């Protein structure tokens, strides 16, 4: 039998198309993720973003009572880029001044209000990150 | 430091010997050609593989049927075709071996599933 496109091949092709469709539908509806930016680029941005920066003092407050407040600067940047962060939720063990962290949240009234539990710290000497947060 | 360098030198020498060994062992060989399969042997191997594939497909069908994974209906549909394929593969192999004058194969698998 010399059928050009057998039914089997067609079903497989349709399955591939279906998978692709699922992918495209999701990404077009759910959007392209949160921008990941440095503190210096935060000025004027209102939406949900991910900040990647260096923790600077002073660190005050309690993340489980009223919020932990600290400053975040550009890594290797100037101190004018300093942003005040208010964080609630689990604080990773490695968190301290001088650590590189990544944190999700939104700028509100001049303060970056973080998503609870979204802080991720980068382990300095090893190449794997340590984190906390609402994960499986 | 010197110990380390001496060891390193010894290591390098040992490696050169290991790498050069085939040439040292046979400085003047009869033939230096890589022992590869020629076209006849390749064809025979391909036919053997086709035969084994056909026989094992039959065996698997029998097994699936006996354990009940495949219904009588599907079994009847397929067994005829598989048996024909196996027979064709065996014939092709016999023809090939008969032509080249080599010994016939000792059919190591049987079409009816003797083993589960």
């Amino acid at each position, binding site marked *: 039998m010399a059928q050009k496109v057998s039914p*089997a091949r067609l079903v497989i092709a349709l399955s591939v198309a279906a998978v692709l469709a699922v992918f495209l539908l999701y990404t077009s509806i759910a959007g392209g993720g949160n921008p990941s930016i440095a503190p210096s680029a935060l000025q004027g941005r209102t939406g949900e973003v991910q900040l990647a920066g260096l923790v600077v003092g002073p660190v005050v407050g309690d993340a489980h009572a009223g919020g932990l407040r600290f400053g975040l600067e550009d890594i290797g940047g100037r101190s004018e880029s300093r942003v005040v962060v208010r964080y609630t939720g689990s604080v990773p063990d490695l968190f301290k001044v001088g650590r*590189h962290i990544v944190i999700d949240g939104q700028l509100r009234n001049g303060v970056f209000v973080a998503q609870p539990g979204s802080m991720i710290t980068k382990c300095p000497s090893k190449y794997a990150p340590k984190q906390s947060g609402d*994960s*499986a | 430091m010197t110990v380390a360098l001496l060891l390193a030198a010894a*290591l390098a020498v040992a*490696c050169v010997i290991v790498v050069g060994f085939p040439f040292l062992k046979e400085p003047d060989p009869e033939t230096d050609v*890589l022992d590869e399969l020629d076209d006849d042997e390749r064809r025979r191997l391909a036919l053997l593989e086709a035969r084994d594939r056909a026989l094992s497909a039959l065996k698997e069908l029998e097994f699936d049927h006996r354990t009940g994974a495949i219904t009588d209906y599907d079994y009847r549909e397929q067994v005829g075709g598989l048996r024909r394929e196996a027979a064709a593969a065996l014939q092709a192999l016999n023809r090939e071996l008969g032509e080249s004058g080599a010994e016939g194969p000792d059919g190591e698998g049987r079409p009816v599933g003797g083993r589960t």
Partner: protein
Amino acid sequence: MPELGRAALVVTLGLVVYALVAGAAAAYLGRRRLAQSAQNALIAAFFTTVIASLVLVSALLRHDFSFTYVARTTSEALPTGYTISAFWGGQEGSLLLWLLILTGFGAVAVRLNRRWARDLIVWVVPVFAAVATFFSFLVVAVASPFATQVAPPDGAGMTPSLQNPYMLAHPPLLYLGYVGLTVPFAFALAALLSGRLDERWLIATRRWTLFAWTALGIGQLLGAHWAYVEVGWGGYYAWDPVENAALMPWLAATAFLHSVMIQEKRGMLRVWNVLLVILAFSLSLFGTFLTRSGVVNSIHSFTQSSIGPWFLAFIGVTVAVSLGLVFWRLPQLRSPTKLESPISREAAFLYNNLLLLALCLAILWGVVYPMLSEAIRGEAAVLGRSYYDFFLRAFGLPLLLLMGIGPLIAWRRASLRSLATTFRWPTLVGLATGLVLLVLGAGSSVPGLVAYTFSAFVGTTIVMEFARGTRARKALGASSWPGAFSSLMARNRRRYGGYVVHASIVLLAIGVAGSSAFDSVAEAKLTQGESLAVGGYTLVYRSLDERQSANATEIRATLGVNRGGDDLGTLEAGKNAYTIEQQLSNEVGIRSDKLTGEDLFVIAEKINADGSVYFRVFVKPLVNLIWLAGLVFLLGSLITLWPDRREQRRLVARADEVGVPATR
């Protein structure tokens, strides 16, 4: 002594470059002695790498801080076991481990196959040597473990989070997996180069692929367990790029393990299989690159060293060369056998491949998305948990279902009538389970309920397969039921070992569904005597203690656990303060219920100066099934990997029939 190490690595580099050049020349020109010489070089490279490794291990054990690497990753007070694990704890050492395993596997693969796959081996040698050249070059010129310095009085110590038994097992297992995938890759390229495009390369590498896949799987589960009990945020997988780095090659390898069966049985999918193994290996290299280049969170920060670009270049070259070879051999790769029906085992395996690959590529997309969006739009954008969770469900759940369907469909073509008969019972059991669970309240999470229902379906099919096989064996004359069972397993290792592995995946699915879709959490700041209730448990904060260990101060809060009026004992949770490293680590308290597989998980998030503690408590149903799944997975893989004497004899007999001389 560092000079010896450095020299040994330089010799290694020389040997593998020779093996590459001489091996390629020998294979192309058909020169026997040159081919043997190249083989010897590859094997010798293993021994020189062993010497370099021994130098590093001895430096670690002697606390020789004149080695920069030793000073950076260990300290005097570090327990010996962890000192050894520092071998792979840092960049340079881990690259050396890669090279060690690579040359070791190369030596073994070449030796084992030197008779019956001779025409492949001549090309396997240069391909292996090419990969080894890259890694030797890295450890010689870019990231040497043997850099020296003026020895400081003490080393910097090891990050506390790495000071646990997992560090001894998790990285080496993952490396066995990553490197192990080089073997089928090398054989695939050798098949393309030599023109020997039949199933020979698949059969030669089947056990290697299984071994690498198993190591990668167990390594990941260990990593998940590590994250769960040591890092202790309450979860075991966070879709972090470093975690995904191991998951992607594992998914590709899973697809490969299935599609090779189609090529073995029907001679189909030759192009597909070669492409899959190239993908798996490339993802393995990419994963190795991801975990060390720091490139994934943000392209500007976190870069640890300069090896990132080297890795990317090597991956690029590997992919380009491999695809070029495939394209060159495309006409010969095409097989005449066609897919006969969309309802057949071949088709089921194809759908399986499609879903596995879709999941793998979706994860890959998520991982590279920040880099791509930064390159295109000038701003990096990250995709969060919800992205990965969606695709895990969208592709993973149908995959779970398929796992129960595939093994029971006939090859070539299955009639709908037979499908109805075969799947009657599993479908009934699945639906019944789903209904019962719905009544019991599992409707709170639809994906969770679906996972449970599908698991019941698949579980039933597996039990039925074992039962039917044993019964058939008994009918053939086996002495007893256990006897029938064991002879069934012995004679059909691949099939039933595979079923055991499928069973482990079912357990994994149930465990993941239970602990992520049906868990509970509560948090509160407690002073001594106060209590917290969650998921049926009541916890009372009793006391706070401090004690000293070898290199840390341990602070522990003790809680009394109560459930439904029963006293379940106490649980401790707290923190360790490491003296030298000046770091804190989380020490969680876990109570595992033997009967239900449920975990009570306590984190002492913040210990205040006044003795009050902020606790976060999870109840995770069925989570221990995940770890049980790991054991079952290992068992299934071992059964499938076990050497089969009959199969060996048959292969040798076949070579004899063709008239291939047995020795050389």
